[in-house]
């Protein structure tokens, strides 16, 4: 073996070794996230039981829970928040935006009563986490993000994770997505001061729209808008917290 060749073999062995080391470390990391994710889902189940009286849902749909246990939330959070990826709290993702608290994501998803054949519109892609959760449950997700760089990042991230049934568009969410309307469900992930009328128009009869009320770090209530079969709207205000503001006597 000539010296050059020997050095080449050494190099190959070294690189291979390094590769194995990295993969196994990554494997450990994945395993670590898997257990954190399971703990998060357990947390959510506990909270759901605890708050059921007011949200109207004491047990979330098993499919929603299993999807939460599958989607790698850590791939949607910024590097410096990796350690908190599965903590039950909202995280900042830059541009003044947040990735919602897992419990709120679960509750909002559950409230939509999704079926596998559904087509869902999302306003406010953000990191793309909510879109990924939806995509695992329905046929097709259309998601609109107003902040160009966020839309770009989410599109790339969702593609890398292999979600073929999500379309992300960088646009004004007000007008919805008329070409693909009507939708079985619409989820507005950003707290808004009003509900755009075009979104209501693009909701199927019998369809559901969910919108959080409050600031980004504090979801105070969830608005559930149902379009009844006669076309009339019923809105329901749900508290994510089981809290009775009056002491026992009344």
């Amino acid at each position: 073996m000539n010296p050059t060749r020997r050095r080449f073999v050494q190099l190959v062995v070294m690189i291979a070794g390094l590769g194995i080391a990295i993969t196994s470390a990554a494997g450990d990391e994945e395993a670590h996230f898997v257990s954190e994710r399971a703990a998060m889902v357990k947390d959510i189940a506990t909270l759901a039981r605890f708050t059921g009286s007011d949200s109207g849902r004491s047990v979330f749909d098993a499919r929603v829970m299993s999807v939460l246990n599958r989607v790698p939330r850590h791939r949607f959070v910024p590097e410096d928040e990796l350690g908190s990826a599965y903590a039950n709290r909202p995280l900042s993702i830059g541009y003044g935006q947040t990735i919602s608290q897992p419990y709120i994501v679960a509750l909002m998803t559950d409230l939509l009563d999704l079926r596998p054949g559904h087509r869902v519109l999302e306003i406010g892609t953000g990191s793309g986490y909510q879109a990924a959760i939806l995509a695992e449950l329905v046929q097709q997700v259309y998601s609109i993000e107003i902040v160009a760089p966020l839309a770009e990042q989410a599109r790339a991230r969702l593609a890398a994770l292999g979600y073929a049934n999500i379309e992300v568009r960088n646009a004004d969410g007000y007008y919805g997505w008329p070409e693909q309307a009507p939708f079985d469900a619409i989820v507005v992930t950003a707290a808004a001061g009003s509900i755009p009328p075009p979104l209501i128009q693009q909701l199927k009869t019998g369809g559901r729209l969910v919108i959080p009320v409050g600031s980004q770090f504090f979801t105070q209530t969830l608005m559930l808008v149902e379009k009844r079969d006669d076309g009339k709207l019923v809105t329901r205000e749900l508290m994510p917290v089981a809290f009775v503001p009056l002491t026992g006597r009344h």
Partner: protein
Amino acid sequence: MSPLQTRSGLALSVALVSAAALAYQLLLMRLLGIVHWYPFAAMIVSLALLGHGISGTVLAVWGSAARRRFLPLFSACAAGFALSAALCFAVAQRVPFNGLELVWNPGQVLRLALLYLLLSVPFLFAATCIGLALIARDAQIARLYAADLVGAGIGAAAAIGLMLALSLADGLRVVTLSGFAAAGLVWLEAPRPRRALALVLLGAAVAWLWPAEWLTPQVNAFKGLSKALLVENTRVIAERSSPLGLLDVIESPSVPLRHVPGLSLTTTMEPAPQLGMFTDGDDLGVITAWDGSASPALDYLGATTSALPFALVSSPRVLVLGAGAGADVLQALQLGARAVVAVDLNPQRVALARETFADFAGHLYSDPRVRVVIADARGYLRANAETFDLIEFPPADSLAGAGAGVQAAADSFLYTVEALREAHARLGDRGVLAITRWESGPPRASLKLFATAVAALRAQGVVDPGRHLAAIRSWNTSTLLLTRRTLDAEDTARIAAFCDRLAFDPVHYPGLAADSANRYNIVTTPWLYQGAQALLGPDPAQYVRDYKFAIAPATDDRPFFHNFFRWRTLPELWRLRGAGAAALLDSGYLMLAAALAQAVPLALVLVLVPLLALRRAAPLRGQWRTAAYFLALGLAFLFVELALLSRFTLFIGSPLLAATVVLGTLLVFAGVGSAASPFVRARHPIGLAATALAIALPLVDGVVLPVLFANAAAWALVPKALVSAATLAPLAVVMGMPFPLGLAHLAQTAPGFVPWAWGINGCASVISALLAVLIAIDFGYGSVIFAAAALYAFAAMLGWTMGGRSS
């Protein structure tokens, strides 16, 4: 150089440092209020003032060495203040602190601590300057402390002037220049005029050279303005700054703004083009494009909950309080108002709507039907006897505020029992008072408002308040009406029809049935409806007691409408925080409590550490009595200052003028008192001044002020300001005495302990500012005054035992 001139150099320097430090404190509140939110700014700045306490510790430990090299050290500290004031702010605004995340992320607590420690550095330098002067020239204590107080009084007034005349960044440049000027002027004592000149010139150069982007506050990423600017082609087209707020007007041509709070879901119309106006980077208001006449394109303005009163009054004369960018004025005209008086406190805001964007706004504020008045809303209500068919109050809070509850500790004189009574008295026979606000469950503000309205009506002698009240809600706003006459069947039919047409739910009107109150926006339990029933029922007090949030009516003595915090609810909300119950924590009150919880142990350390060092050198007999004396004085002074500020803000009716008059008069005349204290000391025991205050304060607050306020309520601003100053001045003269009296005594008996007393005074004022607001929230400003009187009585007792008149 004559001795008088040399002594003036030092006094002038002390006054300059003191003025610059106070101006810096007020500037910093504005700057951080823009970068973060006001309550976080208040917390950071109050804790940063611990720098004053640290200076006491530093001087107590190293003071003897400092005394020998007084001039260079004083000069260096003044220059240190000048440099750090600007630099520390520049660094601080780059610390990625996010107050909204405080309950979720413990890491934010560390960033908060980093912020206040960083910003304590300039205050440490400034206080060290003044402390050094008091130690090194202890024969002149009364005079130098007078310079300190007079300087602070001038600084308070100057800060408001600076913010009116200059940008905040240029305000910081002036602070830098003043610090260097103080560093220079002190050399006149040497005398070293050349060195003095060099330092002043250096200061001018440094101030001029600061890069503007270091000193210009950057609105944080979570505020409305920052988010709006992320949208393509959105840009700021006008910016104005004053002590009343930083105003930014934005246009968003690609993605139109569509800000219409409380718009019915039945509406399919898209709002007319709007320009956004942000105050301190948040609190969006809009200027709507208009062609000067009622137009079908604006029909949506009739489809919000705030349009309800127009169903009860026809072609009304309307008073819009807090008219801002003009949305409510436009709504009133669109819905048939024959005349509108638009009141807003901020002249820049009015000028933007009336002049800068007049064409866009269709000359709304110059419409012949509209009269614009620049005044404080409450001040306007009190000063005018005109009556109206409709009086509209501004929304009690912003959406962000409603979400985070952080406004809790800011007092407001617009949502008190007395304010509603005054407004009620301004209603014509068929007049209606309307208040629209953001709504979210479980109800807090809406119930408190309802309780306040019930109390106001009862106080006006109305036997059955329920017949004078109506309230409705949409999914995110609610509107409360308070009427002069009783609501008859025709009125309630109109309210019911309005609700049915727009899918709103009634909360209350005479004869409302329970099953009609929860049909469109269905809530699990109709707390608002039940609450309104209970508050009108036989035992409203019981309901208020049992409610888990503080919903007892706000009063002028406890003007904290936004505080709903009750300690007994805290454990339950904390336990539920994982499900987002943190949204229900009224963090304003909690933040004050948290700040106090940090200030007290820090202050203890700062006071005890030097004591160990000092005792080794020369023990002081009665050290605890001395400590208690200065602690009581430090606490009492700010108690009085803050309580009187609240009282006179209501009386004068202009927050800026009130702040200038109260702070300026109290501090300058306390300075006069300090300068006069040697004469008192020569003839009377130390405890005399404090005794006088203990007796005078309850009399002033309980007798003098009520009589004055009742008789001068309708006076113009300037006479009000003058009579306020004249009332405060004699009190302030006496308030300026106890501290220099005690300090001069200490300088004679145990000079090493002078810096210790200085530090105690500094720590006490930090604790005092936080404690005063907590006491005011829980017990009212009257109790704050009473507590101050008790503290002065305690100090007097200690003063009498300290020993009598000096030889």
